[in-house]
């Protein structure tokens, strides 16, 4: 009875899901050249987004460039965590710990104890975070499943609490004046000099009518405290580079080893895959990407980090981003990361209710599409096969 009454309500959503899968499949079957062209156009659009400021999408109550920067940071995090969760099948509930490690390494190196330029500190931050990943992973990756989740959960909190209590790391007041990335073509000299190589005006919209706004320009490659857009561009570029690396490694022997390990660890061992080493590699790579994102965050517009930026809640949010997007699909992870950051910012006008609505949206998604918005091709294939079996069984039941 309950089944028949819930079916009609579920129908349109399910149909929407099927239509969406169909669109994704159609796109996947397009010739490589067409796909590449679409991709280039999309990337160009994504770069230009904070200057185009399209209506509806643009956040009104908070600087849109800053929101886009946050989206890119979360997308990068989700991409890293996707390697751990989606590829290798390891549940990491303390990913914020790596983000914090990267952020604090940059903070300490460029402001608190030394005064390195950002671009020297960045590779060190990535290396330190990777090492942290190995140190955490080496003893813990021998345990499986739930235990790993618990250990990583603890790790995330340990990092935060340590940072909060160690004077050398700024304790609870955090680290400020973290170096911005080095400007090219002269840094900004407030109040009038914007620096950079050249200035780009942005669009202003009156309803749906655009006009060029020459009062608010963005200086290309100038990293100051006023404009978030150059930071966004830099981070987006890093994201695209990581995306290429991710693609390369996923289609290699390493990617196949991860996949086998995720599906059946014992069977993978029997095929000759040293599963522990590959799990550790996934952990280290995920950590490095998380640390990289943290480094960019620390040297962002505000140039400030504090222990309160690394709450446990964020680890959960990152996992949600990967799951909502579709664990195992790099585009899904990016989409998930962007949505998880963007939606609460976009709906700020609903004030306190926005988190409630956000939670409801996540719950709806979990029920409607447990496989995520953009599941990997493999998951779609399995689902389709199961659907066919269910349909065949359904027909059988009608005949009886």
């Amino acid at each position, binding site marked *: 009875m309950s089944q028949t009454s819930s079916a009609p309500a579920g129908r349109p959503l399910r149909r929407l899901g099927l239509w969406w899968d169909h669109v994704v499949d159609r796109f996947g079957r397009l010739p490589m050249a067409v796909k590449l062209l679409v991709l280039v156009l999309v990337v160009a659009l994504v770069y230009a987004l904070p200057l185009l400021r399209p209506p509806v999408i643009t956040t009104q109550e908070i600087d849109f460039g800053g929101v886009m920067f946050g989206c890119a940071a979360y997308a990068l995090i989700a991409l890293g965590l996707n390697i751990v969760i989606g590829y290798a099948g390891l549940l990491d509930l303390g990913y914020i710990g790596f983000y914090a490690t990267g952020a604090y390494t940059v903070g300490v190196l460029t402001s608190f104890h030394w005064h390195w330029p950002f671009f020297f500190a960045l590779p060190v931050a990535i290396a330190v975070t990777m090492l942290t990943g190995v140190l955490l992973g080496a003893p813990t990756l021998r345990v499986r499943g739930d235990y790993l989740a618990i250990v990583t959960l603890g790790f995330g909190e340990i990092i935060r609490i340590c940072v909060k209590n160690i004077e050398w790391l700024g304790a609870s007041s955090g680290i400020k004046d973290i170096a911005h990335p080095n400007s090219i073509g002269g840094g900004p000299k407030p109040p009038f000099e914007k620096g950079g190589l050249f200035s780009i005006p942005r669009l202003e919209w009156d309803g749906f009518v655009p006009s060029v706004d020459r009062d608010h320009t963005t200086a290309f490659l100038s990293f100051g405290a006023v404009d978030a857009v150059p930071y966004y561009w830099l981070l987006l570029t890093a994201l695209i580079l990581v995306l290429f690396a991710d693609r390369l490694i996923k289609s290699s022997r390493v990617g*196949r080893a991860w996949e086998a390990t995720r*599906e059946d660890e014992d069977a993978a061992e029997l095929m000759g895959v040293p599963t522990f080493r590959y799990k550790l590699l996934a952990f280290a790579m995920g950590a490095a990407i998380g640390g990289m994102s943290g480094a960019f965050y620390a040297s962002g517009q505000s140039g400030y980090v504090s222990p309160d930026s690394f709450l446990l809640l964020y680890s959960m949010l990152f996992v949600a981003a990967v799951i909502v997007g579709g664990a195992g699909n790099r585009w899904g992870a990016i989409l998930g990361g962007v949505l998880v950051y963007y939606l609460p910012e976009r709906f700020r006008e609903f004030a306190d209710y926005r988190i409630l609505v956000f939670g409801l949206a996540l719950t709806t998604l979990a029920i409607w599409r447990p496989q995520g918005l953009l599941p990997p091709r*493999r998951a779609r294939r399995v689902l389709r096969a199961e659907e066919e*079996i269910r349909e065949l069984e359904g027909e059988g039941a009608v005949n009886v």
Partner: protein
Amino acid sequence: MLLEVEGLCVNYGHIEAIRDISFGVEEGTVVTLIGANGAGKTTTLKTLSGLRKVREGKVTFDGKDITHLPPFERVKMGLSQSPEGRGIFPGMSVRENLGMGAYTRRDKPAIAADFDRVMALFPRLEERIDQVAGTMSGGEQQMLAMGRALMARPRVVLLDEPSMGLAPKLIAQIFSIITEINEQGTTVLLVEQNAAQALKRAHTAHVLETGEIVRSGSGSELAGDDSVKAAYLGGDI
């Protein structure tokens, strides 16, 4: 002896799963371990392939001590296992599963030849080559697990209960394929509950009971043994 086990003891915590087992596998033969549920058959195979730690005893393969080698090193040496309960990769296609079987190898032409050989042994898999493995029937998954183990081009293949849960007609087919694999030159160590079929195919057989070998002999000897008949072959056969 290609594979030799001496005084092997394996524990799960404080529980002794197998106790002081010794046996050998001669190159080119089919050797079977039969026994009831929980006798330690699967534990023995898992220990041979390196998934379980040895408490005491020694395993040698082709004259080399492999007691403490990790599983992937053993695969490279030519020891490959088809796991119990259809331990295939359910989300991968048949082709990708078979590809994983050859994971440690880089000799592309030889891999292609072995792929053709597996296709010839299991025509059914060829029909399903791009199907998602998890959606196939139990018998097909069993064939895939065996085919995948052969893709490593092993010198000895360990088969864990290949007939489990299959229809009688399919069981006969699986066993005749095992004989065929052996005739093509691969040594087989077979663990089975289906004692009648296993004893018929095996050159040498051992009976496992609560972690110990209680009887050994040629396949036909044990098939004629009264106590084996009573315990594993349903009285007379």
